[in-house]
C-alpha cells in the first residue's frame, strides 16, 4: 500500500463569505505500482485532492498516510514526504527560475539536503531520463528553450528527487499531439524506472483510458467511483450523472453495438478494440 486516504474533507476560506467545500469525505487507497487517473469536471476537487498528498494543503479533517508518513501528525516530516511524493504541477514550465538548466533541476535535490556528488548524479540521470541531451543542455538558460523542452526540464526537476509516487496535474495540457504522446511515453518510462506509483489528473479521456489501471472519478468534491476504466466508461448511468465524456475507443465500441455489431468484450484501449474486432471476425 502506498497511499491511504480516509474521510478527507476540506473547505477553502472557512468562515468567510467565500467559503467553499472542495472535498467531502474522500476515502481511497492506492497500491504501490498502480497508475491512477483522477478525472472529473473543473471544480470537482481533483486539484485539492492531489495537493493533499504531499501536504501542500494541510489536512483539515480526515486521515492520510503515504507509505509510513502520517499526515495527521502535528508536524509530519515534510522534507521526506516531498521527496516521496513528486508533484508536477499544471504548466510546470512556469516554475523554472534559475540561470541554467542544471542549476534549476538541482533545486529539488538540494532542498532535500543531499551532497553535491549525489545531486550531480541525480540531475544528469533526470535530464537524460526526460529525453534531453545532458551535455548539450546543462548550461543553457531554461528560458531560451522551446515549450516542450521547458516542460521536460520542469519534470526533470521533480524526478531528480526520485519520488516513489509521481503526481502529475494535467501533464499534457496545451501540448500538440506529438508533445502529448512524448510526455505520456515519458511518464510510462518513469513509472518503469523509479516512480512505481503514478497519479495523473487529466481531462483527456483517451490518455486516461489508454494508460490507467484505475480511475478516481470526482464529482462535487466526492469520489463518485474508484474503479477500472472499463467499469467506469461502460457504466452509462454513472457517465450521465457525472456528465463525463467517453474515450474514443469506448465511443466506437458503443456505436458499433448500437448498429448491431456487438463486440465480444468491452475494450477501453486501442489494442483491446482491435483485438475485439479481430476476435469477432474470427468467430464470424
Amino acid at each position: 500500500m502506498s497511499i491511504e486516504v480516509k474521510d478527507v474533507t476540506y473547505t477553502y476560506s472557512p468562515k468567510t463569505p467565500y467559503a467553499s467545500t472542495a472535498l467531502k469525505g474522500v476515502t481511497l487507497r492506492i497500491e504501490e505500482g498502480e497508475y491512477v487517473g483522477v478525472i472529473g469536471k473543473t471544480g470537482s476537487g481533483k486539484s485539492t485532492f492531489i495537493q493533499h498528498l504531499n501536504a501542500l494543503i494541510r489536512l483539515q479533517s480526515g486521515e492520510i498516510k503515504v507509505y509510513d508518513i502520517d499526515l495527521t501528525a502535528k508536524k509530519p516530516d515534510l522534507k521526506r514526504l516531498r521527496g516521496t511524493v513528486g508533484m508536477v504541477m499544471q504548466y510546470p514550465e512556469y516554475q523554472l527560475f534559475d540561470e541554467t538548466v542544471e542549476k534549476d533541476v538541482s533545486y529539488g535535490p538540494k532542498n532535500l539536503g543531499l551532497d553535491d556528488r549525489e545531486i550531480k548524479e541525480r540531475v544528469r540521470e533526470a535530464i537524460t531520463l526526460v529525453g534531453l541531451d545532458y551535455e548539450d543542455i546543462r548550461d543553457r538558460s531554461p528560458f531560451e528553450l522551446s515549450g516542450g523542452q521547458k516542460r521536460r526540464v520542469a519534470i526533470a526537476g521533480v524526478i531528480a528527487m526520485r519520488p516513489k509516487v509521481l503526481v502529475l496535474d494535467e501533464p499534457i495540457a496545451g501540448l500538440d499531439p506529438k508533445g502529448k504522446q512524448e510526455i505520456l511515453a515519458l511518464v510510462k518510462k518513469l513509472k518503469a524506472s523509479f516512480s512505481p506509483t503514478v497519479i495523473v489528473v487529466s481531462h483527456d479521456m483517451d490518455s486516461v483510458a489508454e494508460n490507467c489501471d484505475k480511475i478516481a472519478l470526482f464529482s462535487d468534491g466526492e469520489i463518485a467511483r474508484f474503479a477500472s476504466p472499463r467499469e467506469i466508461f461502460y457504466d452509462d448511468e454513472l457517465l450521465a450523472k457525472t456528465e463525463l465524456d467517453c474515450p474514443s475507443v469506448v465511443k466506437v465500441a458503443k456505436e458499433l453495438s448500437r448498429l448491431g455489431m456487438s463486440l465480444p468484450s468491452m475494450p477501453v484501449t486501442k489494442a483491446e478494440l482491435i483485438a475485439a474486432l479481430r476476435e469477432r471476425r474470427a468467430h464470424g
Partner: protein
Amino acid sequence: MDNIVFGQYYPSNSPVHRLDPRVKLLIVLFYIVTVFFVADYAMYGVLFLFIVAVALLSKIPLRVLFRTVRAVVVLVLITSAINLFFTKGEELLFSWKFISIYKEGIERAIKLALRLILLMLFPSLLTLTTTPMELTDAIESLLSPLKVIKVPVHAIALIMSIALRMIPILMEETNKIILAQKARGADFDTGGVLKKAKAMIPVLVPLFVGAFRRADELALAMDARCYSSVAKRTKYKVMKLTVADLVAALFCLSVFALVFLNKYLWHFDEMILSLFR
C-alpha cells in the same frame, strides 16, 4: 491570503454597498482631513461610533473591519513608542537612566495611536463595500475635469484598473509558484531573514517572467481589438446620484462638521469634564 484583507471587497447588498462610489470616495477624503482636526477623546469616541454605525449599516461584521487594523499594528506601536519616549513635557512621571516619560508623551502616544487606527478603519470600509472597479470608475469620473488641461484621465484610469485586475491574478500565480516550489522541497518558513529572502528567488523570478508574459499577451489582445485610448466610449455601469447618496453625504458631513465645531467653538471635552466637577 487572509492577512491582506485591506482592499478586499466584502460582498453584500447593503445601502452602503449601493451608494455611488464617487460619493463614498469624497466622503472618505473629507473624513481623512477631519481626523487630523480631532482635538480630544470625546471626538475620537464620536468618530469611532460613527464608523461602527456605518459598518453595521453596511452589514460588514465588525470582526472583519477590525482585522484591517492588524496591517498597521506595527506602525502604530512604533510611532506611539517614539512619541512616548521622545516627547518632552512639564509633568515628569517616570525616569530611569536615559529614559524619561512625561504625561504629555503618554497623551500624545495614545492620541497618535487612536488617530492611526481611525485613519485605517474608515477607508477600509470604503474598500470593503466598493469593488476596485467601481473605485476606478469613480476616480476617472472625479478626475474628468482635468481632461480640459490634457491630462490623460482615461489612460490613467485604465492603467489603474488593469493594475487592480492583475493583483488577484498575480496573487494566485504567486500561490501556485509557491506550491510548485514547495513541492520541490522549498522551505520558506525557517531560517534567518537572509535565508528567507534568498528562498523567495525561486518564486520571484517565475512571477516576473509571468507578469511580463501576461502584459505582452494583454497588449496584443487589446491591439487585436483595435483598442484606442482616445476613442469615445460608453460605460456599462452608469453612475447616477440618488437621494440615498445625498442623505449619506449630508449625514457624514454633519458628523465631520461636529469635529470642526468642537475644535474651534465648543470644546466638548471641557464641557463634559465640567459636568463632573
